[in-house]
């Protein structure tokens, strides 16, 4: 089963970049540009990992986190926080890792591998 990563970020360029990065490394991807979309995607795609931008407008990053943690079947999906501002946000406690932009690609890929393993278990 190919692992799927969900990317939640309002910068389309960055989303595009992560999509390509993860896909190049054998992962499936899905994405959303805001929290509302994010829930839809979360529900329909059921990813194995989420990368979450927490300085989207209207504090939607932390809100998304709080909300999704309340959903039983979804709350255990691991989250990597990616932020342009200070880390960590006080509303977000249990995260796998928190990274600051601009990200270190290799570090990100390593954390992803450690968390959910390789992309495609061939």
């Amino acid at each position, binding site marked *: 089963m190919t692992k799927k990563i969900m990317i939640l970020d*309002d*910068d*389309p*360029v*960055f989303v*595009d*970049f992560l999509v*390509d*990065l993860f896909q*190049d490394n054998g992962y499936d991807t899905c994405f959303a*540009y805001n929290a509302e979309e994010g829930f839809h995607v979360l529900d329909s795609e059921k990813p194995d990992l989420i990368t979450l931008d927490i*300085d*989207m*407008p209207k504090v939607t990053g932390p809100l998304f986190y709080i909300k999704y943690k309340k959903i039983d079947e979804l709350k255990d999906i691991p989250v990597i926080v990616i932020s*342009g*501002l200070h880390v960590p946000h006080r509303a977000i406690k249990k995260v796998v890792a928190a990274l600051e*932009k*601009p*990200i270190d*690609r290799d570090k990100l890929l390593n954390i992803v591998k450690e968390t959910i393993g390789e992309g495609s278990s061939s």
Partner: protein
Amino acid sequence: MENTILVVDDEKDICEVLDISLSDLGYNVCTAGDGEEALRVFKEVNPPIVLTDIRMPGINGIELLKKIKQENRDTEVIMITGHGDMDLAIESLKLEATDFITKPINDDVLGIALKRANERISMRQRIKAYTEHLEELVREKSERLIEAERLIAVGQVIDGLSSVTQNIKEDFDGGITYFNELPCLVSIHNRDLKIMATNQLYKERLGDKIGCNSWEMYPGGEENRQRCPVFRTFNTNEGQRSREIILDENGKEIPVIVHTAPIRGTGRDVELVLEITADITEINRLREELRTTRQKYQQLFDEVPCYISVQDRELRLTETNRRFEEDFSNEIGSYCYEVYKHRDTPCPECPVVKTFEEERSQQHETVVTSKSGEQYNVLVWTAPIQNAEGEVTHVMEMSTNITQIRKLQDRLTSLGLLLGSISHGIKGILTGLDAGMYWIDSGLEKNDQERLKKGRDALQLIVGRISNLVLNLLYYAKERELSWEQTDVLIFSRSVAHTFELKLRGRPIEFSCDFEPLTETFEVDTGVFSTALISILENAVDACLEDKEKESHEIIFGVKQERDVILFNIYDNGIGMDRETRESMFTLFFSSKGSRGTGLGLFVANEIIQQHGGSIDVDSTPGEGSQFHIRIPKVHPKQAVTEYRQDKKFHKT
């Protein structure tokens, strides 16, 4: 003729015998043969004793007795009687004869009678002497008594005077202290032109002169004594006023003004003179000191870099300093809240009112409006002012203009925000660079043209953002000296469109221009203003890129004239904005997200437009697109250039 006796007898023998006897006894004897002769002699000689026979022819002894007694009552008359003349004898005694002796005259009897007569005479003399002496004594004593009474009366006057003097002297020493506090030399003089008392200053300036002459302090000495004011006062009975020169302790000449006042005793005469000498130089010195002190105070009051006003309980201005008058009002009596705040009623949090209530200094920050309508932020300090009874009757209000400080504060705040915004933007830039590089690297590695192209496009976008950031930072950092030019509208607009087109190359966005055929010019700083328009155009690009819904995107750049204003229109059919975004998009509060760069671009664009005296309006529908209307007056108004109203963006009121 004390020892003279007159013997009167018609018998000559007796006369002779008596003469011898009496002469033996030491008497001086005169004789007379009858009454008439006796009288003659008596009138002539006036003997104290007369010895006379009673029975005589012519004027007899009794008659003679009467007549002698008429002449001189005090004469002692001895009657010589014969036997049987007892009746006559008694009668003579009744007529105040001294004695009688009978013939023949016995020497012893005569001696006794004479003795008695002499005794009577001497007694009489003694009495007389006593009487006279007594009268003398009485007169003497009366004189003394009168003298004493007079002295007593005089003494009383003197006492009266001296108590007046004493009172005055006491006034000098204690009592009425103003005599000592007057910058004058005060002295009291008596009729003898002697100084009887002086005040403290007199002692200090001229020495201890009590007992000295009144005229001594004037040059010219004793010859000039009649010129001195004290003398003239005694002379004329009236107070004098004159300018004089006096000599101080060291002989130095001092110009003075002298006033004298007569002090009358119980009579109408002047008993004492009060002399008040005012040192002209002293007065001038005091006057000068007062003037400089006043001047210093006034300087301080006026030049201190505060607005100072003094108000009464009704909040009326009773005093204002120069700065207050310049910027607000110089009407004493007007109400503070009218002049300072342009209100009809006292301010709700008036610190002056609070100071009256609590009788302590208060502090307050507020905004006031000057005569010319400018608003200043001020920090107000108040201080209560008490009267002699300790009641607070007035309050002094001191206000410091902190508008500059607040502006600096705003500037710093905005710089802080700016830094935050920039750092976020830079992160976006770096992320974009990162992405671009990844795509290029992986594209080269995989030989994937699509990917390479993606990388290149990304890099181009980022280059655009970097250059925007740099331009905006430069604009923000440097002094806002604009260089105004009269510029042809169409030529300017075309050049902006051209620059923008170059940036759009490779983007899937249609760009078109819609310019009215204008031949107008407008005043603008072309470099700066074109930056502003480009920023807004780029924002339109970002909006289009963000919008994933529509197939194609377009941006339309329009220019037309509205009366004396040039209207620039930028339309896009990108993602649109909601109301909150629209309202905050030109502030630094609007932190840029996603691909919209730093947000500084729009902020600066708005500033530039404001500086040109223009305005921006935005219409937008989320999901559909946005339209920016930028209006610039053809002739730029002076006001817009002078002040930067950044503060408007941040004050929440």
